């Protein structure tokens, strides 16, 4: 078993101590009660304050448990609020790339479409909001699986459902690909779900860096993979859009 991280243990002790003190605690008091050097205690409590887990009373200088700690268990991002955050950034992405844009999140191992912008060619298209797509065969799904530590385990069966001859069905192969996606920060897929379709997607994160959704473009292999690999300019536009939506998600109600 690996050794515990000492600074996290100490931070937890600081939080427990604050939780027991209805009037809050000053740094000296905290340091004494935990048997830590004052400088170390100060560093810990200031860091906790910076992430919102501790608040300092400006009048007395004493520390209390932070308000955002109370929200920790229920910091749920509403699906419709996610769409409202995404709408102003996904329209320009569709308009610049000429591709359809989808925003999705992981529900019971599948990608649920939260927002859909039509491909800007005015052909007949159907709004897919509320529809579900397989996570292992789509770019959106792979991003969501890659950044969710428990998700791959939740996919049922030894081998995964096959959709085309390109679908990754071996669990080990998928896990290896998810590792590469985590490293580079985006995912792509070519004809793994449907022949004639390809996708590029990137993660949407909340303030703390937690991946809450993914945004991606969908188009033909020829437009997205003109030389056999995902077009770099498209990848950078998808990643930039995901970052912009992340900022919007993080900035809400602040």
């Amino acid at each position: 078993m690996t050794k515990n991280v000492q600074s996290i243990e100490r931070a937890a002790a600081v939080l427990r101590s604050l939780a027991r003190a209805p009037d809050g605690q000053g740094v000296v008091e905290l340091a004494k009660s935990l048997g830590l050097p004052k400088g170390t205690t100060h560093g810990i409590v200031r860091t906790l304050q910076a992430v919102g887990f501790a608040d300092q009373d400006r009048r007395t200088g004493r520390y209390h448990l932070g308000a955002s700690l109370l929200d920790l268990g229920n910091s749920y991002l509403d699906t419709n609020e996610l769409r409202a955050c995404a709408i102003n950034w996904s329209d320009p992405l569709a308009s610049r790339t000429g591709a359809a844009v989808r925003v999705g999140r992981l529900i019971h191992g599948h990608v649920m479409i939260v927002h859909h912008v039509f491909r800007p060619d005015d052909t007949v298209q159907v709004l897919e909001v509320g529809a579900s797509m397989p996570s292992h065969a789509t770019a959106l799904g792979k991003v969501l699986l890659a950044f969710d530590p428990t998700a791959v385990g939740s996919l049922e069966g030894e081998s995964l459902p096959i959709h085309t001859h390109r679908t990754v069905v071996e669990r080990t192969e998928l896990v290896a690909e998810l590792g590469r996606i985590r490293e580079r920060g985006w995912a792509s897929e070519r004809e793994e779900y449907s022949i004639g379709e390809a996708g590029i997607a990137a993660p949407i994160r909340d303030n703390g860096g937690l991946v809450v959704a993914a945004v991606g473009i969908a188009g033909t292999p020829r437009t997205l993979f003109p030389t056999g690999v995902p077009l770099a300019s498209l990848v950078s536009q998808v990643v930039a859009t995901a970052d912009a939506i992340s900022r919007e998600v993080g900035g809400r109600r602040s």
Partner: protein
Amino acid sequence: MAIDQGTTSTRCILFDHGGRLVSVAQREHRQHYPRPGWVEHDAVEIWRNVRRIVPEALAQAGATPADVVGVGIANQRETTVLWDRRTGTPVGHAVVWQDTRTDTLIERYAEEHGHQGFVERCGLPLATYFSAPKIRWLLDHDKVVREKAQTGEVLFGTMETWLIWNLTGGPDGGVHVTDVTNASRTMLMDIAALSWDDELLEAFQVPRAMLPEIRSSAEVYGVATEVLPGVRIGAAMGDQQAALFGQTCFGAGEAKCTYGTGSFLLMNTGEQPVFSKHGLITTVGYRIGDSAPTYALEGSIAVTGSLVQWFRDGLGLIDSAPEIETLARSVDDNGGCYIVPAFSGLFAPHWRSEARGLMIGLTSYITSGHIARAILEATSWQTREVVDAMFSDSGIALRALKVDGGMTSNNLLMQGIADVLDVPVERPMVSETVSLGAAYAAGLAVGYWPEFPGLKRNWHRAARWMPDMEPARREREYANWRRAVTRTFGWIQPEAEPPRSTAR
């Protein structure tokens, strides 16, 4: 480039040849409430904001004024500013369209003249929104200003006029013009002849010398000397008309609705003005250079987004506006509950100022989810009432509704509107339709785009909701809604008028 001078902020947006957004800069201005019912803006602050945001938008795009082919202005309508021609200094603050200080003046006009004469001449019913009563009020309250207005030393303008005058040099040769869409909101313009009307000027005691020249919505009014030196000013339009143009509603029967705090539905009615028997407003949609003007009918819905805000802030049942959709989807229907948000009476097509809002059909079965549904449905049914009124006035049936504004991110609402109207509802790729309309008109004026039907090729559908409701159910629900509406009538009685708050 478009400058969208709105009620709460001013935005500058650069577009490319495909009508795609390149950069945006925005700045809010202060709202002044000197007395209950009064709303004012500082026109100097707004001009200062323009001087800041234009260079910001250029810098974001890595552009200089030399890269800008033309600038178009879209603006909050009816807001009235008077200023000194020689110094460029405004006479006090601008009186904003929402300001109701002229309510007693309007009552007096209604008693003395009646509404009908005004509607036939200028297309508008007597109301505090429009510029003429605001000008009259300002001139009545300062004898010196009235004298200077008579000699043309004090000028009148709505916001586009103020900005164009300043952009073209202000006291040093500034061009004093307005466009037909803005002039059509003053109550001073003959809606058929498109010129200032002597009888209306007389009725409101507005001297002709203070008025700007009425021009089309898209022509080169002048070349900027300030902020954008050398750039041609090619368009001006009221914001809702600009949205109609930006949504490329170029044919009779095409309509757009902007869903915000309140909502504005405009339908293109072609080259002839259609006068409404249902209290809709007849307005100029746009006029491109020398071509014939295009008219529109306008219906406004006072309470739409603000009803969701009330649900969030007044009732506290949700934390953010988008969550209303989540709550509404927790149930399958309204459970028999209807909400009529007649918070300050009912507007088009009912025009009942004594009506007040109600929630009806309550049983112990009703949950917050049903109420959330009823709130969204109130916006759909109010849209339906305006569309029905437009049909009976114009005889033109709506084939599709183009939508924009913040509430278009609500899928349940958009589907609901398609269901009750029984036509497709379409959202465009560029949500900044007001700015896009102004940019399109300016681009046409300077030849950046050769002809305007071609602009339709730039309009792309971002989403479309198809009607999916059984006709029998639609009729049943509409009948219920109408019954709920009639029950709001007559609530406020003259002696029961709530006491008015007094000035602090």
